[in-house]
């Protein structure tokens, strides 16, 4: 086994000396330098200021490593030796390059080695999220925190986890959000709600105002009548004539001059101050306002609500409302049931909202109609001492007195009444945001929406368009949306192509009681929408609650597959939608086992936060991009789209689930002790929460004093006890005691961890989450470190579902699975590798490792095994029958199956592709890195790329042969490529194939049989994939070694160092004794002294 010896020898040598290996270039390579370099780079002729005749061969300083790096780069880039001087033979050059790049990797590692030092680290993004979950029972999206890892390190490596001020602020904000949501979920406050009927304010005012106006007018009429009677006296005719001459055409002038008319009564007798007053109140205002007020009162809508008006302060230009004075400061929702009238311009359909006597705070479009008013929701925050009164008014109705007057006057002149009523308010409701939450449940019969939508589209667009087109063709007259013959033709085509599919849908009896999910046209998806979202614009569902609060919700639907639906079409994809019609983020894919005659009820749980999506889309699992193609193909055959495969009876949502309903949830932060003052209780609560947040460490008094200061400031600003506590509680979540896993060690040497530190190291390793009560209890008793107890805890933690966080977190990074998301898969070429399949393929890797870990199986099952861990969807994909259902389970493989082990997994193979074609280089390098623990050096910069064969019709293998021509390429590719060729029987998405087809635009298309045979570099040969796999599987120790090093790095939070050699050997030895049981690796590492040492 030459392969094996190559790797193990240097490693054993290092062990024997117990010191980091030297990065030393063997003396014999001086010959190469002497032959090809020294002529120009010597003591006399130091070209490029570089001497190579006496260069040191031991790369133990940054400077020396840099110098050699430069040499490597120059040779790699082909610049050295220069073209006009003597060139080394290709193999000699490749060997030299291989040696030098390998030595440099060792040198960088040696120089950069941290000597076993574990740098204190902060929680990474995954751990932070899980820690909030365990501590507070809230599940927040934390995507705004920076992604961790990078520079090739695991996301647990402290030295690579940074902190910045931006990040600190995000911790503060997220901590605050978490605390708020915790209180919503766990410490509900009393629900407060008040509703004001709009007419209750407006109607009495305007009724009284109008009565006053009538009274004023009547008195005016009586007075002027009396003045007129005096004027009619014959003896007064000269003065009346004189008055008429003074102001011609002004009928009111005589009343202003009443004193000059003998016998005319004073306006004071009629209740006016003087003539000016009388004219103003009794006539001008009457003319100006009375028609408006009459119209207002006569409108039937003012019996149940009120219109917002202009200028007339006694009508309703300004709808005020108040938050009751005894309600606590805090966040409230104002809900306004409001409508815009049909005959007013759209520009007037906006309502302004703001604090009484203050500026407009927000303006809202009003889309509700008088037939169907909307409920507008406006959040407000009430602060102590702040305004509690608010107003609503029509946009622009009160920009200034002058402007309002002007608008009113213009309208009055136009219609004799005043501005038409544009906005109507039914009621205004105020509720506190964090009030006691009601559990809601709402079922929707999907056919109502579906039929309105499908039938409407058919009648209006498809059939209606066709009729209009026929009318156009018959008459030549443009019809609605059909201006010309081209449009007519198009609409006829639409009808002919889609009409039958629509009719089939509408005529199917099952659409009377439910809805089909179709492909491409007709009815592609259903939706479960939590308020305020609506399933479509076609019909509005009356929700049981205007909006839902954050929390956990259950989605249910009754679903069945049609009798003829093939197995691969019996999957439902559930996704979320934030915006737009096409937006779809896959949540999960479920197999449909029910039928249309015997439907099943499917249930899934979703977590809803303040800003997460509330629309959940239900589709048949498929590659949507291929819809049109499939639709057209089916249409060619049957005249209709593919027959629908899935049918939904109804959909339902329920929630939020109450905290009590959850098993073993976290303790609520606020537990009020009896007979204590607020201050005492606040301090106790903060101290208690800090200890939990700090994973068992107590906060110190000065810190608590500061927190109490923040609490008191809150109280002084008017917050109640609970709200004042939220700020200092969230400060705890931004403190270093929470954010960092600190293990003090002032001394020079190392020390043993105390049990609390050990508890954290252990739980973050296996759960990516903080220690639970049991771990903390053992730590406080100081018994956790006792090997028997610790061993039992390791088993317990692994058995706990929370260890899934280790499986996914570790595996994703260890196997480099981020590559699966590097590119879009070309689903035109790989039709069934849709997002659901990709997600299931990714899950297969996790589920397999999960299975191996928990069932006590051996690590070498990852190299080769006679079983797979799959679900029904993947069984279909792999062509394995007899498996159905969404649960992943162990399935025995037929004898000749290429599956079983990582190399046969679709996800691993797809990672070794570019989404379209296979990449033997990626696959080969991955085998060397992950399975054989022989990582090739990183891709060097400035190596000339070879494109010579790119445009030729060659097989992948032939095309990559160029890699062997240049020594710079060959140094690595001679090891990499043959292994990748061995996997060529798998296409880019991991399907088995026996031929390969290459197609190049303008060049042609050709098919070759796959030739997987090859050999390890300087090692054994294999004739096909199966032999390749067997030879890799024959070396579980190499695979185990790579796994161990990754495990050490992940678990200790620092790069695997040279001092870790004995540790790795010990772990491997112990695991080997247990046939490489995966759990044995973990146990050996955790029980090692290194793991328990700082």
């Amino acid at each position, binding site marked *: 086994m030459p392969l094996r010896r190559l790797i193990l020898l240097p490693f054993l040598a290092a062990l024997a000396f117990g010191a980091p290996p030297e990065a030393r270039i063997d003396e014999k390579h001086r010959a190469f330098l002497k032959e090809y370099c020294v002529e120009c780079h010597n003591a006399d002729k130091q070209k490029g200021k570089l001497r190579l005749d006496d260069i040191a061969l031991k790369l133990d300083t*940054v400077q020396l*490593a*840099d110098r050699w790096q*430069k040499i490597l780069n120059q040779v790699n*880039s082909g610049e050295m030796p220069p073209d006009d001087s003597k060139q080394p033979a290709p193999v000699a050059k490749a060997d030299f390059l291989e040696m030098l790049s390998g030595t440099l990797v060792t040198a*960088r*590692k040696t*120089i*950069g080695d941290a*000597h076993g*030092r574990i740098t*204190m*680290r902060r929680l990474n993004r995954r751990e932070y999220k899980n820690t909030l979950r365990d501590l507070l029972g809230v599940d927040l999206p934390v995507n705004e925190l*920076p992604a961790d890892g*990078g*520079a090739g*390190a695991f996301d647990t490596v*402290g*030295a690579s986890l*940074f*902190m*910045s*001020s931006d990040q*600190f602020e995000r911790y*503060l904000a997220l901590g605050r959000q978490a605390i708020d949501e915790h209180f919503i979920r766990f410490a509900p406050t009393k629900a407060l709600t008040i509703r004001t009927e709009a007419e209750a304010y407006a109607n009495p005012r305007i009724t009284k105002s109008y009565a006053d106006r009538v009274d004023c007018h009547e008195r005016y009429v009586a007075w002027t009548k009396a003045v007129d009677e005096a004027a009619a006296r014959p003896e007064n005719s000269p003065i009346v004539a004189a008055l008429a001459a003074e102001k011609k055409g002004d009928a009111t002038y005589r009343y202003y001059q009443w004193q000059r008319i003998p016998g005319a009564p004073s306006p004071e007798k009629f209740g006016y101050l003087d003539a000016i007053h009388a004219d103003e109140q009794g006539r001008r205002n009457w003319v100006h306002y009375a028609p408006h007020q009459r119209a207002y009162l006569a409108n039937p809508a003012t019996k149940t609500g009120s219109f917002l008006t202009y200028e007339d302060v006694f009508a309703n230009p300004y709808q005020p409302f108040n938050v009751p004075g005894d309600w606590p400061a805090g966040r409230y929702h104002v809900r306004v049931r409001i409508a815009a009238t049909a005959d007013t311009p759209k520009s007037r359909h906006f309502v302004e909202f703001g604090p009484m006597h203050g500026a407009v*705070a927000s303006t809202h479009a009003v889309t509700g109609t008088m037939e169907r008013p909307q409920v507008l929701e406006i959040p407000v925050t009430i602060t102590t001492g702040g305004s509690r009164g608010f107003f609503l008014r029509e946009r622009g109705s009160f920009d200034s007195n002058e402007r309002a007057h002007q608008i009113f006057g213009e309208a009055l002149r136009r219609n004799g009444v005043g501005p038409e009523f544009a906005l109507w308010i039914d009621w205004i409701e105020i509720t506190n945001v964090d009030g006691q939450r009601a559990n809601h449940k709402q079922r929707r019969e999907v056919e109502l929406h579906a039929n309105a939508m499908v039938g409407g589209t058919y009648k209006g667009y498809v059939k209606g368009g066709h009729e209009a087109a026929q009318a156009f063709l018959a008459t030549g007259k443009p019809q609605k949306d059909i201006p010309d013959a081209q449009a007519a033709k198009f609409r006829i085509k639409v009808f002919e192509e889609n009409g039958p599919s629509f009719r089939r849908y509408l005529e199917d009896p099952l659409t009377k009681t439910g809805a089909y999910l179709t492909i491409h046209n007709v009815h592609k998806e259903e939706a479960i929408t939590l308020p305020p979202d609506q399933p479509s614009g076609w019909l509005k569902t009356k929700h049981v609650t205007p909006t839902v609060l954050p929390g956990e919700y259950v989605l249910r639907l009754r679903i069945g597959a049609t009798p003829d639906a093939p197995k691969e079409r019996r999957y439902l994809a559930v996704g979320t939608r934030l*915006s737009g019609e096409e937006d779809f983020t896959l949540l999960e894919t479920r197999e449909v086992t029910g039928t249309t005659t015997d439907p099943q009820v499917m249930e899934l749980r979703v977590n809803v936060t303040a800003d997460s999506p509330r629309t959940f889309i239900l589709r048949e699992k498929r590659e949507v991009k291929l819809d049109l193609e499939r639709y057209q193909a089916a249409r060619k055959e049957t005249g209709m789209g593919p027959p629908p495969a899935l049918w939904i009876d109804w959909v339902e949502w329920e929630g939020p689930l109450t905290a009590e309903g959850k098993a073993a949830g976290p303790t609520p932060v606020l537990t009020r002790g009896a007979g204590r003052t607020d201050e005492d209780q606040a301090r106790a609560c903060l101290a208690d929460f800090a200890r939990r947040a700090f994973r068992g460490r107590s906060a*110190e008094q*000065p*810190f608590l004093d*500061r*927190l109490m*200061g*923040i609490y008191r400031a809150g109280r002084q600003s008017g917050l109640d006890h609970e709200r004042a506590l939220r*700020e*200092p509680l969230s*400060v705890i979540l*931004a*403190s*270093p*005691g929470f954010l*960092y896993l*600190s*293990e*003090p060690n002032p001394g020079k040497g190392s020390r043993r961890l105390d049990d609390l530190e050990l508890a954290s190291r252990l739980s973050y390793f296996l759960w990516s989450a903080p220690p639970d009560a049991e771990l903390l209890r053992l730590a406080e008793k100081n018994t956790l470190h006792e090997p028997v107890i610790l061993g039992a805890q390791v088993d317990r933690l692994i058995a706990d579902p929370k260890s899934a966080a280790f499986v996914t977190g570790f595996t994703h990074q260890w196997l480099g699975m981020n590559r699966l998301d*590097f590119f*879009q898969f070309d689903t035109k070429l790989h039709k069934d590798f849709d997002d659901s399949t990709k997600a299931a393929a990714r899950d297969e890797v996790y589920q397999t490792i999960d299975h191996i870990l928990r069932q006590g199986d051996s690590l070498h099952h990852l190299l080769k095994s006679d079983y797979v861990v799959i679900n029904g969807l993947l069984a279909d994909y792999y062509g394995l029958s007899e498996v159905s259902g969404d649960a992943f389970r162990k399935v025995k493989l037929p004898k000749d199956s290429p599956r079983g082990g990582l190399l046969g997994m679709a996800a691993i193979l797809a990672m070794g592709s*570019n989404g379209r074609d296979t990449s033997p280089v990626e696959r080969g390098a991955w085998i060397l890195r992950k399975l054989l623990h022989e990582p090739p050096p*990183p*891709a*060097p*910069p*400035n*190596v000339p*790329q070879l*494109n010579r064969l*790119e*445009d030729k019709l060659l097989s992948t293998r032939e095309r990559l042969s160029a890699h062997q021509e240049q020594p710079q390429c060959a140094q690595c590719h001679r090891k990499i490529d043959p292994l990748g060729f061995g996997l060529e029987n798998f296409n880019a998405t991991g399907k088995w194939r026996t031929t390969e087809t290459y197609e*190049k635009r303008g060049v042609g298309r050709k098919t070759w049989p796959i030739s997987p045979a090859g050999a390890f570099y300087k090692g054994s040969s294999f004739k096909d994939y199966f032999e390749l796999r067997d030879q890799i599987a024959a070396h579980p120790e190499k695979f185990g070694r790579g796994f161990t090093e990754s495990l050490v790095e992940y678990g200790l939070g620092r790069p695997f160092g040279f001092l870790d050699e004995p540790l790795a050997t010990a772990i491997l030895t112990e695991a080997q004794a247990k046939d490489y049981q995966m759990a044995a690796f973990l146990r050996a590492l955790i029980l090692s002294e290194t793991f328990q040492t*700082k």
Partner: protein
Amino acid sequence: MSRTDLSRRHFLRAAGTLIALPALSSLGFKAFAAEKPVSQPKRMVFLGFGYGVTNETWFPSLKDTGADYALPAGLAPLAEHKKDFTIVQGLANKFSDEAHWGSTFWLTGANRYAQPGQSFHNGISADQVAAAKLGMDTRYGSIRLDCANASDSGHGPGSMAWDARGKPLAGHENPVAAYHRLFSDETMPLARRQALLAQQRSVLDAVLEDAARVRRGLSRADTDKLEEYFQSVRDIELRLSKDEQWLDRPKAKAPFPPPKPGLAGKDEIKVMYDLIVAALQTDSTRVLTYRQPVSSLLASLSVKVASHDMSHYAPGERMEASQKRDLEQSRLLAGLFAKLKATKEADGSSLFDHTTIAYGSNIRTIHYLDNCPTLIAGGGAGIRLGRHIALQGKSTPLCNLWLTLLRGSGVKVDSHGDSNGTLKELTA
């Protein structure tokens, strides 16, 4: 003075940081474009794209230098601005050896391996050097714009901007968030904001109290690590001090309404460019970096090739994708130049006249890290524009360029990164 104040000052002093608060007099004006001082301030903008360019069609011929060089196809959309930018060839970061890291060291020139005992090291980036000087008088010292999934766009780990300690500085990935940060009105009354500032300060005081506990007994390396936390708090302290100075002055008015959410690719870059102009125009900041997306740019151009595959182009589909990318980037850049030129300062000169725009990548093309593509525009640093300069050799330190631009913009520094001088060719 309250106890809070005392201890905070004490902390700042104890932490050994000298906080240079901007002098009040210099803060008294310059808040708005309308209140500009007589001489226009210098600005610097660094635009980094990850995966380099198409070698064959982006660079002018090395033989064709000077003012009358022929503009290559990849730069064609910039033709109308040809007199206003200079292409420099022959610059590189000599320590760079990661073939997919297009911006990690672009502005720092640092040696990843410089620190024994560490596998990663970086230094301060040119923009942060600039921000320390040019950012003193503006509301924001520097603004960093970023893209989602940066490594997918060839950028490498961390950031493009690195602080004085070589730690990555996060940026805004989302144009909407960046917009609101820059321009959204403070709806809160002044008194309330003052109270909030006070509250933020007491929050900082509290966490520092706990930090003091955690720090006790830490090893040296861990103390260094925790120092990042202290530094973060200190940075916020500085910002709060600055906020206080700016408390009674509203944010600048945005010249356009908030961008639509969900923009990606070319639309995203365009709106980020608009934000850059707006930020400069309103004098909200004078230093900006933008780590541009490549992956989503390709998607927005309906290019099917994945970004990394595109970067390894060869004649055919992938090379076409690469060239499409170059063209669109040039088009967008031309748009930015046009906007900067159209935006007038109080004295009638344009914003472009006082801004330096550096546009480039640490990757030339494919896996090549030499001759980093470099385009310099704008009148901020006194560079002679309208030329194609081919420097001797392939590896004049890129940091010589940064040093030249920094000094030209009035930032007095002796050196930057691995610089060994300035580029006389640029100013001569």
